[in-house]
Each structure stands twice: as C-alpha cells, then as structure tokens.
C-alpha cells in the first residue's frame, strides 16, 4: 500500500479542524495536551523536550487551558507525580529527554507495572556521556520491555494527533498502559510546520473522559494498590500485563479507524506506513524523522528506475509483529536503520534490527536483511546517506555472505 503522509485531507470548514498555526513539534504536543483536557502536568527541564512544558505553562498563564502545573524537584519526582495523579483518575502528562528519562527510570518502571495510563513525551536525545543535545533513540527504547506503549511520529501534525490517539489507546479499559510518544530531538521537537489544530468538539468526540473505574483511588473506592505480592502472585500479575500488551494491538487499530472517521482519512495504516512499496524490491525501515531523507531518496531513486520503497515504523510497542512480517516478506532485501545502539548484542546490531530480524524469523519468505547504525548524537542522516543505504541493501539480496551486514553510516573513519 502506498500512502503519502501529507497534510490532513479534511478541510477546516467542516469544523473538525479549527485553525492553522505554525508550530514546532514541542508546541504541537502542547496543543494536543490542551485538547486532551489534561488535569495534571509535571515539568522538569531538559533539552530538547522542555519547550513542550514552556508552551504549556504559557497556555495556562494566559488562561487558554486549565490544569495543575507542578515544577518537580527531579525527573524521579516528576514521573511519580504523574503516576500518582493518574491513580486518582486525573489525566496526567509528563515528559523528558535523554539522561532525564533515565534518571526517572524507577518511576517509569512502576507506572507500567501499576497499569496506569498517563502520557509522556520523549524528546529523543543522546544519553550522557559525552554530552550531546541531538537525537538518539536509546532513551525511549529503555522502556520497551517494561509494559509501555511506545510510538514514534515524524511531523508536528502527527505529534499533536498522537497525543489524542495515545491517550485513547492507553486509557482503554483493555489496555491501561502508560504511553511514551517519542519525537526526535531537533528534527521534530524544533522543526516548524503548518499544523491544523482540531476543534475542541472533535477532540472530545474522539477522546472520551479518562475513567480508571474500579481501579481509581478515592475514599468511595477504598482499594489497596500494589501491595507486596512475592512469588505467590507475581507471575499471574505479569501475565495480566502481557495480555494487556497483546490486546493493545487491536485497540490501536480501532483507534485509528475512529480517528479517520472523525478527522478524514489521515492514516491508511495504524502501526506503520509505507511509501512507494507496491512493486518495491528493496526497502529501508526506520523510526522517526529519518523517514524524511528516506522518502526523498526513494523518490530520486525511483526516477532512475530503482524499485525502492520506505517503511516508517510508528508503533514500536506493541510491536506489530504479524502486519510487519507480512509487509517485509514481500521484498527481496530490507535495510534496518537504527538511530540507537545495543553494544555487544548479537552481531552488534541496533535495537530495531534485533526486533525486526526476530519478527521475520518465522516468515516463509525471509528477505535479505542488513543493518545501518547512523545519525547518533544528532548527526544528520542525509538524502545521500539514504541513497547509500539503499545501494548496500540492494546488494545484500545478491550475496549470501555476512559481509556488509552492519554498516555505520556517516562515521568519520
């Protein structure tokens, strides 16, 4: 299926989208938070996600939005504030980047094991040391096995819309998992686009009020949450988390269907989107803003007659196993672009590579697969880089050795 991810098709005249504004990714997320009628926000500064919180505090100061806004003393407190607000049935929002995200890791862990559904934006940033403001995905990836929903978007428009979609999925009674909305540092957090802002009514129609129901903490519902369970019950509780993550796939699909019904056919596929893949033999797959050079390279290579395409993976958790398996087994070779690292892991590949290779193992038609590690610390991944990656990936289909199995792209050697 071929989709071009351009502007929303639905016009503003029908009242679904209210106005247009020039917004960067951070500001777009802030608009999404307003439209989601979030009740509690906890903030702590770290580049590049901070501007989300800057924008929200200004919206509150100007009376455009009503929420409790707490300046926390650390990310650990910030995330615990969000978690506990969520437990009393308040819609809660937090966020972070890089080392800040890791500082609050304990709180992120329990938010998932407690099956609470707040949302956090992760403005992806390289982990210290050495210091770097630029994008890398290891921060958000750190929650991938803990019971989180984890999704990457590529434009401010998608970022705004995924605040609504994210809460809708996370809070569903069959899911109730925390949601990490990942936006690439600089390339998305601070790149401006024209964004169509949904009307309050349309947002409300799509996103019902948060209701933790029988699990909310309130004097009228005197329950004990997360008592010490030990070996007596932990396995059964883990299994419930496992089931929820499985169920989330169906809920995501439903959510996009409803979103499309209200806002016009915005998303042709829920978990990932494909660009010029119909007759493609060679594709690249990645998460986040690498989609932009990836798609442009496709366009240029197509002009020269190469059968190439790009797959942009949006939902990393839950991983769309069956759909992606079916998609990628159509091609001769697949190049996986990792903006992360997994030192010492099998074949020393990146995280995305391991996931995709694992996903493809049971496939009847396994494509040749190679890995690229690039764009670390915020280094640009250019159109030329993407063309080079397509070239290496196409070659992979022709040989059966492991040569060139993993390539660091744009590395000074």
């Amino acid at each position, binding site marked *: 299926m071929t989709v071009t991810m351009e502007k929303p098709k639905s016009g503003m005249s029908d009242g679904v989208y209210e106005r247009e504004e020039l917004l960067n990714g951070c500001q777009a997320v802030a608009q999404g938070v307003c439209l989601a*009628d979030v*009740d*509690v926000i*906890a903030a702590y500064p770290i580049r590049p996600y901070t501007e989300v919180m800057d924008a929200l505090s200004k919206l509150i100061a100007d009376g455009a939005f*009503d*929420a*409790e806004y*707490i300046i*926390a*003393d*650390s990310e*650990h*407190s*910030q995330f*615990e*504030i*969000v*978690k*506990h*607000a*969520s*437990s*009393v*049935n*308040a819609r*809660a929002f937090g966020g972070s980047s890089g080392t800040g995200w890791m500082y609050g890791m*304990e*709180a992120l862990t*329990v938010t998932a094991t407690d099956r609470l559904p707040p949302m956090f934006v992760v403005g992806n940033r390289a982990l210290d040391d050495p210091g770097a403001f630029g994008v890398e995905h290891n921060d958000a990836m750190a929650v991938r096995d803990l019971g989180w929903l984890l999704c990457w978007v590529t434009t401010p428009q998608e970022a705004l819309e995924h605040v609504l979609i994210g809460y809708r999925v996370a809070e569903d009674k069959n899911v109730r998992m925390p949601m990490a909305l990942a936006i690439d540092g600089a390339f998305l957090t601070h790149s401006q686009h024209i964004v169509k802002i949904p009307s309050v009514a349309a947002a409300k129609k799509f996103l019902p*009020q948060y209701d933790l129901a029988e699990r909310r*903490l*309130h*004097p009228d*519902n*005197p*329950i*004990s*949450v*997360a*008592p*010490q*369970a*030990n070996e*007596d*019950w932990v396995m059964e509780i883990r299994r419930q988390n496992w089931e929820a993550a499985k169920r989330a796939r169906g809920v995501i699909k439903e959510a996009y269907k409803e979103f499309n019904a209200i806002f016009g056919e915005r998303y042709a596929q829920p978990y990932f989107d494909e660009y010029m893949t119909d007759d493609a033999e060679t594709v690249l797959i990645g998460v986040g803003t690498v989609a932009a050079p990836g798609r442009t390279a496709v366009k240029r290579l197509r002009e020269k007659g190469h059968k190439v395409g790009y797959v942009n993976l949006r939902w990393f958790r839950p991983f769309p196993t069956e759909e992606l398996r079916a998609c990628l087994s159509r091609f001769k070779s697949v190049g996986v672009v990792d903006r992360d690292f997994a030192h010492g892991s099998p074949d020393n590949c990146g995280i995305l590579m391991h996931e995709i290779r694992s996903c493809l193992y049971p496939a009847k038609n396994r494509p040749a697969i190679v890995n690229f590690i690039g764009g670390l610390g915020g280094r640009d991944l250019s159109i030329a880089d993407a063309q080079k990656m397509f070239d290496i990936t196409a070659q992979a289909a022709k040989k059966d050795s492991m040569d060139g199995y993993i390539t660091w792209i744009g590395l000074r050697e």
Partner: protein
Amino acid sequence: MTTTPKIDYEKIKGVHKVPLEELYTSGHRTCQGCESATTMRGFIKASGPRTIVTGATGCMYVANTSYLTTPWIVPWMHTQLGAGGASAVGMAAGVRALQRKGKIKQEKINIINFSGDLGAGDMGIGGISGALQSDYDLLIIMYDNESAANTDIQATGLSIYGAQTTFTPPGSKHRIMQRRWKKNVAGMLAVGHPTCKYVATACATFPPTDYLNKTRKALSIGGPTFIHTYDPCPKGWDYHPRYSNELGELGIKCGIYPLYEIVEGNVIYTWDARKSGKGRIPVKEFLQRQGRFEHLIQEDIDYIQKGVDEMWEEWEIPGVAPLKGILKARI
C-alpha cells in the same frame, strides 16, 4: 485556586476519647511490639475515612501490606522508596484538578504519605522538600525506626551515633562503625520551607494522644505539612517487644528525641528537655536498654551525652536548629 472545604477535627482529650473505628486492621505481618505499626494505626484513626494514603517501600510496605491481606480500610497505594513527597503531590494535584473541573465532588480529601527514615530522610528528602514548597494540602509522616529495617537493619542517616546495624557492626579494630550524628530532618525541613505551616515530631505512644492530635492539627492547618515520628523497633534495636512504648518515652526524656511542633514558625515544646524546662534523664538510661548499644564503652556514652547536652543548652533554638548564635563581625 479553589478553596476546599475543611474537616472539623476535635481535639482528643484523653485515651478514652480516641475514635474506636479502626481503619488499619488485621492482615499486616509486622513484628510483635512494632511501634511503626502503632504509628500507622494512629494517624489513620486520627484522620478518618476521607483519606487517601501512599506508603513508601520499607517495613510498613513489605511487612505491612501483603497482596490479598491488606490491613488498610482506606484507599492505599504503594509508592517507591524515595517517592513519598511526589506521591502526595501527584494525588493532591489530581484531586484538586478533578474537583475544580467538576469531574468529582467537592469535599476535603486528606492526602497522607508515610515513608521510613531511609526513604524520607535520605533518599526522598528532595521530593519531600518539593512537596513542602507546594500549596497542596498534604501530610508526610516520616516514621523513624532508625534503620533500613526492612532490608535487615542497615544504618541510615537517622541512626543514632554508635548504633550497631548490619552495615555498622562493632569489630576488633573499629568498635564504632556508625560515626554519623543523627540527621535533624524535622528541623531542617522547618527551617528550609518558610511557607510550610506545620512541622512536628511525635511518638505514637508518648505522651498518650499527642501524636493523634498532632496529626489532626497538621490536617486542620492545611497546606503541606510534615510529622517525624520516633518508632522503637524491637528487631532493629534489640530489646524485648514489650518495652516499645517505654523506649519511646525514654528517648524523649533523655533528650535524644526532641518533641515539638512548629506552627507557622513558632516552636512549641511538647516535652521541654532543657534544664530550665523538664530537664533530662541521662542518655545511658535509654541506651543501655538496647542490644544495639551493648558494645559502647563509657567514653562513647559520654560523647553522645555531650552532643545531646549541646542540642538542648547551646543551640539557639534548642533541639530544633543547630545554630549557636551570631558571632560579632571581626571587620
């Protein structure tokens, strides 16, 4: 900002006036004689059912609240070891936002967190500081059994000088491994948070009902408030469980545990251990009742006595703030 209605608490005058309703009941597995369990039972009796509680990791979580046998009649949630302050802020913020937006009924709901001396006094002190700077109605109770009891009695920043713990065992080369003076948490928090209207220290059993009334006072005064309780722990302090209440009383009377409240900046001694007040019994009478101090020699006891005497006779605000006054400028 919205003004939330208040609960009118009566002062409990005498033990026979203590509410009969138990909101912390059977189901917990704390040691016999555990004073911290009494601290739990007390604060929730005093605050009543319109309360949400968070409990940090520690004995009062692990030994206290087991899956399917919870002792809590009120809504209760675990919070992480150092997250006591943040847990209270999160819940108070959630409740306030929901009430303001009309998503739940307007009423006073108490938000109380309890954390141990390691959780609150060491790891979570930053989060509690954050909470005490906020304008939410919340109460944080630091129950101080002077060790990381749940992990088998390790020294914390609040363990008394010289105490034996599994991290501070007396040895043939070093008799004393716990060489830190007990951290002054209540005083530090009171001094550091000028807008916090109520900080107190208390002991669940001495003087009778004092702790319950301090809990009620904290909730009535409102805003973010803090109570530090002294909780004798038979396992960690090594004494027969029947003496828990006596040890609390001795700790207060010897001056090691200053008992006071600070109401909008004014210090009120519950037990004035100055020579000019009720005076003090020798610290030895408290120390020698516990196995954890068995290895101390007279010299060590004298050192502790000297430190305690200094607290009461030389500190500008005795027992509260370790400042000794203003020196004349030399220039």
